[in-house]
């Protein structure tokens, strides 16, 4: 059988210039265990694993395999030592077949350097059969769904005889169902003797599969945790203070529908209909959350509303006025607040000061501008108020926005967008890569905007965030609207819908499953999650908000 390996990281320190990404980290991965590294974004988990995989050289410390110190000069050395890694962003060549990707770097050759892909195919089938992966060795990677691509990555590691498998945020790109399958695969791998280092910030998954949990905060190990510990305990360890997992949200009080999208279609340069005939409306004082796996048209939908796309058909009406076809500036002036999904790319200008970033959309309007001149004093004054109001942690508004942490950057974007009277508020991935403390704050601000009577549209790929914030949930799949469901709809139903299953089928499917109760360690259902055991998702029970939502956001 597989040789078992004990892996030990001793006093690993990694500095990038003055930044200490890892500070004397000690981790021991016992053989045949699923060892979870839990920590917020930017805590230093990925850096640590890149050190272990030979991509970075540690500044200090050593790696021990079976108590023997080893030095990795590159990933090749790490692989030779039996360490495999599945990166957060897959390392697969899209135009190669599965077999070619698996063979790459560890090719079997016939005489003369000729590739022997048959041998690779055989190995893939062997592993695929053993774990029930169902992977065709001759399929092109770019044609495969994300979940299958991830299995190819796992096969890649197993073909190289990995005894320790590092999974870096493996569930970030998966639907809830794919996630369950992955957790299941992890258990299978464990039973075959492979140790797994599981990097995550998603408490639900961590609790479901881990044998040991090491919590990392700001580059340091802050302690070990028991997988039996409650989500609240784990969350506070990860964040370093007590956090409230529940969002106090009054029930929605929807008034008249003032924002309406009808038959909206967005055509990409490739000719593909990335948004395909979508219709929905949002009432004042209501949050509509758009759920879906990344890349199913959410980005294009929000951008189309803002006027960033050229080839858009249909109609977008705000307060009785058509806003489709108007310039972005007109749309903003019509009272649309917009938080883009990638704040560093579209939300902020990193080299500009915080104060300047806070008026990016109103730099030419009073009181900040008079004729052709700007009034720096007014700009700074505005910055002071906003920084205080939104609790942006910075010594000065004159600092470049790019120097702020993710959470504080997001607060700046949110502060800018919420500091004028709005008639529609759109926030795309409002808490992606944001620390837990800021998430709480940002969510409260979003709810407050709703309570002031603004129609609010949230786009999030995180089901937990959707469930927590939404008054109604619209699910997108391949640019089409699968359906709109009320808040409190079961996680199972939403998950199926995110995979393109229609609402009716999803409900039927979820209902069939429930009579046969799942085991206690079931990946998606923490004991606190009441909806999952609800036999009739069509009549949803009260969802406990925020169960495990802490840190459920990704980089």
């Amino acid at each position, binding site marked *: 059988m597989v040789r078992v390996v004990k892996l030990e990281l001793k006093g690993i320190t990694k500095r990038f210039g003055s930044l200490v990404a890892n500070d004397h980290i000690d981790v021991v991965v016992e053989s045949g265990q699923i060892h979870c590294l839990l920590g917020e974004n930017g805590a230093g988990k990925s850096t640590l694993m890149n050190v272990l995989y030979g991509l970075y050289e540690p500044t200090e410390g050593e790696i021990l395999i079976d108590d023997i110190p080893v030095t990795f000069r590159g990933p090749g050395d790490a692989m030779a030592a039996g360490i495999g*890694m599945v990166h957060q962003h897959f390392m697969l060549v899209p135009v190669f077949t599965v077999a*070619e990707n698996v063979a790459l770097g560890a090719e079997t050759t016939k005489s003369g350097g000729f590739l022997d892909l048959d041998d690779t195919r055989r190995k893939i089938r062997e592993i695929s059969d053993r774990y029930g992966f169902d992977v065709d060795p001759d399929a092109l990677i770019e044609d495969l769904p994300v979940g299958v691509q991830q299995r190819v990555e796992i096969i890649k590691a197993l073909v190289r005889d990995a005894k320790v498998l590092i999974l870096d945020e493996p569930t970030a790109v998966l639907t809830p169902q794919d996630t369950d399958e992955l957790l299941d695969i992890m258990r299978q791998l464990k039973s075959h003797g492979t140790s797994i280092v599981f990097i995550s910030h998603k408490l639900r998954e961590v609790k479901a599969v881990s044998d040991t949990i090491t919590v990392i905060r700001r580059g340091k190990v802050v302690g070990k945790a028991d997988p039996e510990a409650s989500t609240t305990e784990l969350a506070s360890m990860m964040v370093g203070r007590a956090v409230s997992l529940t969002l106090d949200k009054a029930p929605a009080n929807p008034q008249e529908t003032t924002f309406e999208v009808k038959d909206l279609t967005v055509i990409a340069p490739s*000719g593909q209909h990335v948004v395909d005939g979508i219709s929905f409306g949002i009432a004042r004082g209501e949050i509509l959350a758009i759920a879906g796996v990344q890349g199913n048209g959410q980005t294009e939908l929000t951008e189309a509303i803002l006027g960033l796309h050229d080839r858009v058909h249909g109609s977008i009406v705000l307060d009785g006025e058509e806003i489709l076809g108007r310039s972005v500036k007109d749309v903003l002036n019509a009272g649309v607040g917009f938080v883009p999904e990638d704040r560093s790319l579209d939300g902020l200008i990193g080299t500009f000061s915080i104060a300047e970033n806070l008026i990016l959309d109103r730099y030419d309007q009073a009181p900040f501008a008079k004729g052709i001149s700007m009034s720096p004093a007014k700009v700074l004054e505005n910055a002071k108020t906003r920084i205080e109001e939104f609790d942006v942690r910075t010594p000065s508004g004159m600092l470049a926005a790019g120097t702020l942490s993710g959470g504080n950057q997001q607060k700046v974007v949110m502060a800018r967008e919420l500091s004028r009277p709005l008639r529609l508020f759109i926030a795309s991935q409002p808490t992606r890569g944001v620390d837990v403390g800021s998430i709480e704050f940002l969510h409260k601000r979003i709810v407050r905007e709703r309570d002031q009577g603004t129609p609010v549209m949230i786009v999030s790929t995180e089901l937990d965030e959707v469930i927590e914030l939404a008054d109604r949930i619209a699910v997108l799949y*391949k640019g089409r609207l699968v359906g709109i469901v009320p808040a409190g709809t079961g996680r199972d139903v939403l998950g199926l819908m995110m995979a393109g299953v229609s609402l009716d089928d999803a409900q039927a499917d979820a209902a069939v499953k429930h009579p046969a109760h799942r085991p206690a360690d079931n990946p998606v259902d923490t004991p606190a999650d009441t909806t999952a055991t609800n036999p009739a998702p069509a009549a949803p029970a009260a969802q406990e908000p925020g169960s495990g939502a802490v840190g459920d956001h990704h980089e």
Partner: protein
Amino acid sequence: MSTTATSPVPGQPQQGKPQPDKNRRQAESAKPVTWKLPVTLSVLATVAFIFFGLLGPQATAKFGVSSGGDFFQLPAIEVPAFLSGIVLSLILLGLAGYALVLKARQNQRPPRWLPAVFTVVFVVAFLIWVVGGARTPSISLAGLLAGSVTLAVPIVFGSLSGVLCERAGVVNIAIEGQLLGGAFTAALVASLTHNPYLGLLAAAVAGALVSMVLALFSIKYVVNQIIVGVVLNVLVSGLTGFLFTTVMQSDPEKYNSPGELPNIEIPVLSGIPVIGPILFKQSVVGYLMYVAVIVIWIGLFKTKWGLRVRAVGEHPQAADTLGIKVNATRFWNVTIGGAVAGIGGSFFTLVAIDSFTKEISGGRGFIALAAMILGRWNPIGAFFAALLFGFADNLQSIVTIIGTPVPSQFMAMLPYVVTVFAVAGLVGRSRPPAADGIPYVKG
């Protein structure tokens, strides 16, 4: 679903899901089919119908097939220009119509053979039209084709250089400089040593040296690859021009009389009409060309080396995480590419003309770049694309001799018109290596 209800194994209940998911994804993942190709073909077919068909010449075009040296003689082909113009352009219209119908009815891409067949028929129709309208409506087909191959040789080598570099992710604009450097060095070394074979070898070294400068700056110092390439072309052009006037012209006997590489005729086989002179009556450089095309193709697509090279050009990070040295692979590929182009350059001074003159490569390095794109970064594709350019080049000089209705200046434009069409991507979808031109910096 019945099995899932009875199975309490976690993960199992999801079995019902991937099926619809997977099927849909696979159906939709293909790139959308555009109207570009069917419309382009239709326009070309209509042009062919009007000019080659309706306005075609009434004469009979005569194509000589055999040359004096063949071991058996075939009669010349005589075709009525007007009739064949009509027939061939109707075939073209049919092909274009088929492509249109496929797109309109089933939203399908035309089969892969269609553009190729279309091109061949179009060229034949064009040829008959040109020859039929000439003052002396008779040309030697064998001569035309053999001449095309000859003119294509440096272009083929150049495009192979491009394939080698760009498959590894480095844009090689410096092909022109590599050809020119090869041509100059071949002439100089062959003159000094009185051995054209040493000249050939020196050309490869010179091309590789030019390439190493490109590799050094674009890989190690991460300078924009296009800019380095352009600068290298100017540098080599200036340097060879300077040395030509100051050194070579001071004593052409000594420095610029390389002597020719002999033509090697393979007995019997070279006597086959049409094919014989193309395949079996070549200079060493010509034979090397065929070898290079095949070896590079096999190397890229059938060996471990090729898999790694392509991975480096498509997704260098993935290659890096698998322990492949990305920048070293790129460096050596660019160097080998330069050597290949250098050999192509020696063709100018050791085979075509037996002396060096300024700018002897005459922009063929850029045509080679176009051939590489038209050939979709595939050595065999690039070979045939280069042949097409060689053909256009040769046709131009032949029709000038026989006298055609079209001004020869327009014929001279032909290779460049074809290039523009090719590079604009009008002939099918061409997809460069994903990391082409993007430097790889670790971390």
